């Protein structure tokens, strides 16, 4: 077993955290979405009407409900696992490689879960009650070819950003995440200030979904490289 495989296994030993908890969160968000639909119906909404469908498809619960957990999972994949990985004899490079593979496995697993549940939702005409949980605008409005890359790249981005924050903590202690967060916020606001005037109506009209995919790939790559750079000089104490 090479170093990257061993580091991947190190993360996968915690099966419940990787595979169990996300499904529990998905189930909880689904129940909350169904309850909200019930409340709207009781308040006078008409299930299946055009107005109902438009409103229900704006449900962002399933798109954003896991984000916080995934960022946390990314943080702990480095912050508390890195010292033990070095103890076991991993190199920093193999650890970051294994962490990235694990994050990709987790993201692919979530994408498959979402895809299966979307198919069930479509096959049951939205759970027999016009409840829109996965067939929503944020996840491609029932299009598997949009849902799969959206969930995969979104999850992977959240995990790698979390890992980057974990690495900044491993390298600089409490100051790391504070300065990284402040730096990212200032950088993003500065970028917005620069490009906002040049974003005209024609640019917005020409917007393509794959731009977001490219942005996600860049975020994932930059986060992984920065994580490695931070961990190379991190000292375990």
């Amino acid at each position, binding site marked *: 077993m090479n170093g990257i495989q061993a580091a991947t296994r190190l993360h996968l030993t915690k099966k419940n*955290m990787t595979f169990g908890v996300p499904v529990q969160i998905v189930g909880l968000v689904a129940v909350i979405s169904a309850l909200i639909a019930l409340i709207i119906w009781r308040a006078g909404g008409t299930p299946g009407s055009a107005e109902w469908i438009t409103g229900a498809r704006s449900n962002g619960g399933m798109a954003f409900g896991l984000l916080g957990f995934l960022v946390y999972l990314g943080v*702990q994949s480095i912050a508390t696992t890195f010292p*033990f990985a070095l103890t076991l004899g991993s*190199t920093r490079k*193999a650890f970051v490689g294994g962490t990235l593979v694990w994050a990709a496995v987790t993201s692919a697993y979530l994408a498959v879960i979402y895809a299966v549940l979307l198919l069930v939702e479509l096959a049951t005409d939205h759970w027999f009650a016009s409840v829109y949980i996965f067939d929503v605008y944020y996840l491609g409005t029932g299009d598997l070819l949009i849902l799969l890359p959206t969930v995969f790249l979104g999850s992977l981005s959240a995990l790698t950003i979390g890992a980057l924050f974990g690495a900044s903590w491993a390298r600089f202690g409490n100051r790391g995440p504070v300065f990284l967060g402040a730096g990212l916020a200032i950088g993003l606001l500065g970028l917005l200030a620069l490009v906002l005037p040049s974003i005209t109506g024609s640019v917005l009209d020409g917007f393509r979904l794959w731009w977001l995919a490219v942005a996600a790939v860049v975020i994932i790559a930059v986060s992984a490289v920065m994580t490695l750079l931070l961990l190379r000089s991190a000292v*375990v104490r």
Partner: protein
Amino acid sequence: MTQAIELQSVTRRFRNDNALEDVTLAVPDGAICGLLGRNGAGKTTVMSLISGQDRPTTGRVLVDGDDPFENEAVLSSISFVRDNQRYPDDYFLHHVLSIAPAFAPHWDGELAAELVEGFRLPRKPAIRKFSRGQLSAVAIVLGLASRAPVTLLDEPYLGLDATARGLFHDLLLRDLGRHPRTLLLSTHLIDESDSLFDHVVLMDRGRVVLRAEAEEARRVAMCVSGVADAVQAFCADYPVLRSHSIGGLRTSTVTGRLDDDARSRAATLGVQLKGASLQDLAVAYGSGDSLQDSSKEGISA
């Protein structure tokens, strides 16, 4: 003799503090070396550098002739669990036992099971809820069952009860007999481990103050005790490492061999004389008296 571990003029600086200063030491292949010294002497930093978990500010660290930092082949031959080891969130004992073989090519599952049974390690609570002794036992399981050619044990006795310490000793000796390897062991319970060591490195304030074969180290110094004036008279001809007085009685540890001359002089002055044990040496060097004035009356210097 081939050296399994070498540190050549190693300094490790954290901001303005030198955790290690110009440390040079070598541990021969197959040796059982005691790494002794007070808290903060630099023992864990030395182990951290040897295991590639840290890099020296200046100097070189070699394990089997290679730099261990980011060296997968070398790191797979080293086992080092620090005394304050952190484990991933929500990690249980079975997680540790299932992942360790993926990194340790010589892992012995039967030995691990025997140690877990012997130390009565519980499977149920998360490791972060383990007691200090149970954490030490987990470190021992990892250290011994990995059968790493270079095994570093950092304060393995911390919190262990007497039965567990005995078990550790027995299994360590049995396993080293069957599977010889280089062992570097740091401990404050020196008298209990004394018989294990064939080499000793003694550190104080980030420096190596003594490195020798254990037999040689046991002949380096002697302890003299008796009436203060007589002890002081005896010590006049020897460098004093540490002195301690209670009332009119005084005990001093001095460098010098316990030979016929020393015995005859002690008999003449009416003082008691004995060879300094490794524990006596560690206490003496750790007191700081050897670096300063040797007479600190009335305090356990």
